[in-house]
């Protein structure tokens, strides 16, 4: 009914006013709109590319003098010395000004970044996968959705709050009640001896790693949960009908079915862990010049150092300290990019399909 009136109306309009000028104007407007959208679309698609390129170029330009002066020892020395800042003797090496005695080796920061992320992954990956499987396959739908809400809330807690909890409550608790027992009883064999020694005061590698794991569990778990939900029922029933246990079905059918996606989820979490600044800065104990000798000692990461040291770096009138911070940032960026590329390669090896998530940086 309404359709026929519309048709009749349109026919009447064209019949009564064939004004070609109006038609042309309308066509031009439509063309303009289409053009605008094409340009807007193209520009939006370019923005991520440009942003990444811009950040890389700026960092490279900023860091380049530091890269030249600091050289290779930046990667294997454990020194953090901005030079004599009181009687400010400015030295020029190869055209780059810096304070006399300035010497930087970022091994503790690089090692700290990798170690905290490793601890976080070792804890978060099994917990997240287990949680995802339980949520999807065991819990009643209503309970599962409530837990899902909590997972998402946990993911949304500002890292400064997690850091505060880690520094005030969690760190001291494990340092007083848990780590002394472990430190005393761990056998003195390779790898495990890393858990021996002074249990510290609650600020350090273990606390930072644990806090990080709590921050990435919701990311990895909720992504994995969504993936596990997508596994069709048919192959799972096939496994159950074959007399496999739930655990065998999960390990051999459900998880491999979405293996590539889980790698992506883990990389997403790893990206967060590598770059997390605030929570680590608040719980690491800030040790710029030593690679942690056991799992309880104070340490720092690249991100935490960039944040905590930047104020001091600005006091260096030659600007060399800031350039070194930029070099540090570049190292972090290369690590995260390398992790992402490695993950893509791994995913392709696992499945031959594209990575569903690639926003690890």
């Amino acid at each position, binding site marked *: 009914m309404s359709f026929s009136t519309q048709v009749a109306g349109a026919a009447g309009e064209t019949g009564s006013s064939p004004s070609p000028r109006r038609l042309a104007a309308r066509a031009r407007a439509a063309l303009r709109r289409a053009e605008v959208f094409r340009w807007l679309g193209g520009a939006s698609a370019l923005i991520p590319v440009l942003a990444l390129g811009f950040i890389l170029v700026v960092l490279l330009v900023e860091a380049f003098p530091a890269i030249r002066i600091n050289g290779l020892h930046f990667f294997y020395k454990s020194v953090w010395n901005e030079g004599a800042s009181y009687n400010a003797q400015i030295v020029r090496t190869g055209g780059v000004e810096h304070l006399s005695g300035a010497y930087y080796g970022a091994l503790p920061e690089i090692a700290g970044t990798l170690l905290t992320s490793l601890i976080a992954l070792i804890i978060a990956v099994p917990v997240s996968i287990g949680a995802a499987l339980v949520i999807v396959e065991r819990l009643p739908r209503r309970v599962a959705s409530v837990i899902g809400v909590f997972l998402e809330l946990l993911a949304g807690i500002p890292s400064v709050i997690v850091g505060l909890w880690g520094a005030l409550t969690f760190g001291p608790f494990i340092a007083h009640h848990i780590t002394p027992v472990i430190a005393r009883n761990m056998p003195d064999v390779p790898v495990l001896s890393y858990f021996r020694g002074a249990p510290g005061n609650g600020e350090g590698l273990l606390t930072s790693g644990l806090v990080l794991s709590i921050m990435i569990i919701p990311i990895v778990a909720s992504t994995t949960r969504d993936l596990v939900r997508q596994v069709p029922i*048919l*192959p799972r*029933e*096939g*496994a*159950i*009908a*074959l*007399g*496999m*246990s739930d655990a*065998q079905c999960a390990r*051999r*059918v459900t998880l*491999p*079915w979405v*293996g590539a996606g889980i790698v992506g989820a883990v990389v997403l979490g790893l990206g967060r862990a590598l770059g997390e600044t605030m929570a680590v800065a608040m719980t690491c104990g800030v040790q710029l010049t030593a690679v942690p000798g056991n799992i309880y000692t104070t340490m720092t990461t690249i991100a935490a150092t960039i944040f905590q040291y930047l104020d001091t770096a600005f006091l260096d009138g030659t600007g060399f300290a800031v350039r070194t911070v930029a070099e540090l940032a570049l190292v972090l960026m290369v690590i995260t990019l390398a992790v992402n590329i490695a993950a893509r390669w791994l995913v392709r090896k696992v499945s031959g399909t594209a990575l569903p998530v690639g926003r690890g940086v």
Partner: protein
Amino acid sequence: MSTQADPAQPAEAAGPVGGRADQAVVTAPHAATDGQVALTATGLTLGFGTRTILSDVCVDVRRGAVTALIGPTGSGKTTLLRTFNRMNDKVGGYHRKGDVLLDGRSIWHPGVEVMELRRRIGMLFQRPNPFPMSIMDNVAAGARAHRLVSKAGMKDVAERYLTAVGLWGAVKDRLKDSPFRLSGGQQQLLCLARALAVKPEVLLLDEPTSSLDPGATQAIEELVRTLAPDITVIIVTHNLAQALRVADRTIFLNQGRMVENGETRQLFEHPAEEETAQYVAGRFG
């Protein structure tokens, strides 16, 4: 499966039905002690939530025979089939009265281990469902899970059972490949090989050819014929001609009731029940 009441389901289907079901009850007790009987359902009433799918079903399934389960959509064929290896137990709202006996022992007896039960009663599904692993691993997956074969013996197992289903020639050079590159019929044969590799006594086939082309269907049907009498086969089918081709015995279900159970030819040519006669003549379903 939905636990909601299905409005399309007639209300009468839920209620207990006398007459024919009572006749079946008479056959059940002696059937349970008969050595010829592999599986027996006695007074099996089963449903999900408020919906009753099976009402007082009593059937016995001959050992070493191929038995077809026929009936119109919604008659409870698949539900009955899935009850035999307890695949329904965890569906939401599941409730049950009555019993199913395997070799005279209840499949819900506390001494029955459900994973071992499912090894003894294998299953093939409507659509092929290979696992996300290589063809060889697929065949050996169940056998590995039940520790029937060592890692080193996997290739032998794969060869034996792929040969048994006539797939060996086609896949012997790509045992490490993904099964998802095989055709639908080949995938279903692979799933059959996988089911056979755990040495089941009973095999449940849930419309195994409904997603396959005629050639693959014929291959599966011929295989099913060769499985008996070593394996007791129960095949759910929508296709009456298929039941005639493969089944020694046929059970006709309608609206959750067991209507008739007998020799296939007898049931199709001289059905004892008017309902059966109407169904096999194609007047409903």
